[in-house]
């Protein structure tokens, strides 16, 4: 299925990441957003509020993030593609309802334009410190997908992909931007609608009476129905059986919670994307994501200019983590250098996958600015000692 042209602003534009993300939502078919203002993410819904009445859809500004994160899910069960946008403190408030989306398998997108934390932190300045929160922030065991754009172009591209993955796997998908990517302005190419692939909702063809809301299909993802179609279905985030009815047996819990995770982790080859360069004969590979990958590229270029064999591995799908790829790299390089705008979050995943087969050098930064390329270059040099 191709994108609905009504939402696609085909052409070459000069956009910041927040606005490009909004265009990605529209191109992907999102016609509903619920939001609550928070810096540095608000521009996404400001643009949506301006654009959506002429495209055909709804923006509603809710009273808080607790409401926004649940209102969008109601819209999804009424048939819409929907999303919300937030930053640190708002993302924290949304965590319970992200768990609801995971448990009820509500396809939806949460955009987090990361800023410095904890607490109110640095509202106008960047960080990448919600990377573990987006994976583990709601209670219980579940899986999500998280994507990390590093440019306004990718804010568009990966937002479209976020909606497609949400529909395909029926999970909440996180677009993990940061303040710099959100506010930097660059060229953004928006293709014609017929060149944008859209994953439609996996709506059942079964008739009421033959349909069980949570009966998994071959790829473990159940089919969906919407309110008002005559199915008389029940949705609960209590542990539920295939009919959607609450159950308290360990067997139902086992089967449900494993399926919620397996439907993601058995499809890694379809979901996981990354961007690597110069890794074939590298002694050191810099593993980074988001805005940090662009600073890292400067450090890599400087190292290569001085004769070092240094490669780039850019994480695009943070969750599920590119385990296979990092494991493979760890088996043939001397070191992996991991700069990130936090005190060391994704580096833990890198260490876990490396399993001691190479050095892993963390290059932490508390946020508020991006790294200086020299900090990363020094870490590369240190790793080569």
């Amino acid at each position: 299925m191709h994108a609905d042209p009504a939402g696609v602003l085909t052409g070459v534009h000069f956009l910041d990441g927040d606005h490009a993300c909004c265009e990605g939502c529209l191109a992907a078919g999102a016609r509903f957003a619920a939001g609550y203002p928070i810096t540095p993410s608000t521009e996404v819904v400001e643009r949506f509020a301006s654009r959506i009445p002429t495209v055909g859809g709804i923006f509603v500004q809710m009273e808080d993030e607790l409401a926004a994160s649940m209102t969008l899910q109601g819209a999804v069960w009424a048939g819409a593609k929907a999303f919300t946008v937030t930053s640190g403190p708002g993302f924290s408030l949304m965590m319970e309802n992200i768990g609801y989306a995971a448990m009820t398998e509500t396809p939806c997108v949460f955009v987090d334009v990361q800023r410095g934390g904890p607490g109110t932190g640095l509202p106008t300045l960047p960080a990448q410190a919600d990377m573990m929160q987006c994976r583990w922030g709601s209670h219980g065991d579940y899986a999500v997908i998280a994507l990390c754009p590093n440019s306004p172009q990718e804010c568009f591209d990966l937002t479209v992909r976020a909606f497609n993955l949400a529909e395909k796997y029926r999970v909440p998908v996180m677009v993990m931007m940061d303040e710099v990517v959100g506010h930097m302005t660059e060229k953004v190419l928006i293709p014609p609608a017929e060149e944008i692939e859209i994953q439609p909702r996996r709506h059942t063809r079964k008739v009421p009476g033959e349909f069980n809301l949570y009966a998994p299909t071959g790829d473990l993802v159940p089919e969906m129905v919407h309110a008002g179609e005559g199915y008389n279905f029940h949705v609960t985030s209590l542990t539920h059986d295939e009919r959607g009815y609450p159950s308290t047996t360990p067997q139902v819990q086992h089967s449900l919670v494993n399926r919620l995770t397996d439907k993601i982790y058995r499809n890694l080859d379809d979901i996981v994307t990354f961007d690597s360069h110069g890794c074939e004969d590298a002694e050191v590979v810099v593993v980074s994501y988001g805005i940090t990958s662009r600073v890292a590229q400067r450090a890599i270029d400087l190292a290569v200019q001085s004769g070092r064999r240094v490669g780039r591995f850019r994480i695009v799908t943070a969750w599920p983590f590119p385990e296979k790829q990092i494991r493979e790299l760890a088996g043939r390089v001397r070191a992996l250098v991991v700069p990130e705008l936090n005190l060391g979050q994704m580096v833990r995943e890198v260490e876990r996958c490396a399993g001691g087969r190479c050095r892993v050098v963390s290059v932490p930064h508390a946020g508020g600015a991006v790294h200086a390329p020299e900090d990363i270059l020094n870490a590369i040099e240190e790793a080569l000692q």
Partner: protein
Amino acid sequence: MTAAGGLPALESNPVEPFLRMDRMPHIWCPGCGIGTTVNCFIRALLDSGADRQNLTVVSGIGCTGRVAGYLRLDSFHTTHGRAIPFATGLKLANPKLNVVVYSGDGDLTAIGGNHLIHAARRNLDLKVICVNNLIYGMTGGQTAPTTPRDVITSTAPYGTFDANFNLPHLMDAAGAVYVARWTVYHVKQLARAMAEALSKKGFSFIEVISPCPTLYQRRNGQGDGLNALQHYKQVSVVRHGAPTQEVGIGRHGEIAVGKFVDRVRPDYQELRRAHLQESLGGRYADTLHLEECECPS
């Protein structure tokens, strides 16, 4: 054919087609009033001839939060306090849906209190049924914002001392177009009020005073469920149109019941459409149902 008690059984119970009988027995305690309200709700559906296919029920968490799961309708059991936001999304994305929020006093007025007042302010076309048992039931009888003064609860073992909400007054002030209160003793009036709200456009709020014999009546020496009904019968006074600031509830004394507010003001979606049409003219794309799929329907 006879039922278990030896009484002659009816050929069929008219409310059963609206219940998920495969989920019975329900979890509610003997003497609890929630089941009575569900019976009234289904009677209201039958009497008003509501379009069942487009009727959607949304509950939050708690004893009343379980109502959605027992109704054979499209039904959603949401997170604690968030039934109204979820219902907001349903209604805005598909205005054909008649969306009922059916939840308890703790869910709607404490953890969800912010959403309650804002939905009333916006005049969203939602029908809220608030079963008020004056306490948190599911978690063991803790103090709620609706618990009157001088009541023993599990978290106020020496008695409550702070003021409780007067819910009709709160909803009146926030802008609801329909506000009524009944008790579970008033089954006919309650069913009528529910039917009225179902066909009224805008934000409707029905408070149903209901006993929690296990955790409220017992701790406060007020007997069982039957005693509660007798009490409601004795102290309830019908005061249609009463100024809502005068209908607060205490541990003792009168319970004012009746329809307090019934007014007309444009609802959120009407206002939104009219405003955007005026602002954008021909550029406004009026989309009713935001359905993004190749659905068989």
